[in-house]
């Protein structure tokens, strides 16, 4: 169990060092950077994928795009994509890194939004039109609330993806918590590696918890069937 004791001492060294709590490379700064990059990428992905998924699911046109993008995104190696974009576009701004982050986060949201909308009971759609709702009302007032659990699942899967890829992106010079891990590994500073890794894992878990909470708040109890029959 020697690794456990060295593990603990590395953690102590990392979190105990005053240097890590102030200045440009400090934990709060790295944390905020990580939040900024992954948040920005996720936001852009949501803005692209949700409307696209809604449109394809509602009209039934463009299903192939969804299937292909889903499979491709899973097969494409993130590190390879990051390196390719950086080699192509340079490192003058964060965009060469943000673009692949967005590209990889679009498919999970797209697929789940599409499946969610498409999977709504046809009877329900029929009833909605039969009541006299117009197309956009059917989408906004019936299909989206009913498909919301899947749409949010897509966003959650994307968030998992984006947090992990932002970490890897530190290799290509992006800031964020990945820096501790990449730089620490390069300079054999294992306190940084272990401390950074623990921070990233915690970050990912907090994101998960936030999504679970968002789901609770936004999904109708009638859809999640969370209520016990009184």
């Amino acid at each position, binding site marked *: 169990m020697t690794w456990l004791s060295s593990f603990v001492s590395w953690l102590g060294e990392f979190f105990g060092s005053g240097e890590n709590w102030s200045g440009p490379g400090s934990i709060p700064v790295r944390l905020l950077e990580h939040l900024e990059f992954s948040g920005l990428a996720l936001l852009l992905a949501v803005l692209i994928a949700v409307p696209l998924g809604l449109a394809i699911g509602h009209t039934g046109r463009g299903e192939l795009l969804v299937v292909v993008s889903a*499979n491709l995104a*899973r097969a494409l*190696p993130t590190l390879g994509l990051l390196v390719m974009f950086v080699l192509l576009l340079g490192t003058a701004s964060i965009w060469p890194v943000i673009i692949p982050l967005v590209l990889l986060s679009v498919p999970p949201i797209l697929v789940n939004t599409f499946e969610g909308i498409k999977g709504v009971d046809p009877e329900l759609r029929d009833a909605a039109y039969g009541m006299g709702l117009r197309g956009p009302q059917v989408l906004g007032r019936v299909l989206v609330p009913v498909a919301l659990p899947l749409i949010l699942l897509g966003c959650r899967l994307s968030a998992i993806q984006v*947090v992990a890829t932002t970490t*890897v992106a530190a290799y290509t010079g992006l800031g964020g918590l990945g820096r501790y891990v990449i730089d620490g590994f390069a300079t054999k500073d294992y306190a940084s590696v272990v401390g950074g890794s623990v921070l990233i*894992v915690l970050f*990912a878990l907090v994101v998960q918890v936030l999504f679970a909470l968002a789901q609770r708040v936004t999904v109708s109890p009638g859809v999640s069937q969370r209520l016990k029959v009184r």
Partner: protein
Amino acid sequence: MGDGPPSIWEWIGRNWDTGRADSIRNLLTDHLTMSLVPIVLALVLALPLGLASVRWRWLYQPTTGLMNVVYALPSLPVFMLLISVTGLSQTTVIIPLTFYGMAVLIPAVVDGLNSVPDHVRQSAVAMGFTPLRRLLQVELPIAVPVVLAGMRVVAVSSISLVSVGALIGQGGLGGLFTRAYQNPFMPPVIVGIVLIVLLALVADGLLVLAQRLLTPWVRARKGQAS
């Protein structure tokens, strides 16, 4: 041609089999090992765990809860944390990938077994199948399509995820990406991406083929419908 940078084909030819550890051929072999072992291990472990979660319902929630957490863990920090236990070896990549695979496959096994219609299960019991034979001859075959769908996801993502291991020196073809970044040069990146996507396609195709062979009735039904 002689003065400019080498074409991508020249580069492949020069690096295919150099005899060194980082020749494309060796990287490909490493990549296959590090992705196939977790796929197989994940299946072998997920089957009994999935079966147990169906048999003892109380196990299901904690198991899937744990697997959801595991799935959310970013691979790179997990690799890094494992280094202190398993060192800079292929095992460090194989263990987390196995867990990611299980996170997908356990729910797939459970869903697959739950997809067995109750009347089918009941009639198997009524005909006198022992629980083990019922499992092997009735329930598992019916669960195959769902499990294989999970396997396809696991296979494709494992193959692509191995490359992150390059950041700890164990990434198979991912090694081409780090090499290309350190010594800015595009061909290795392209070759790496293409080979990884090809591997994923082949694995996916094989699993589709396996599904056809294992579940001939699914195709028969589709043919009838159309």
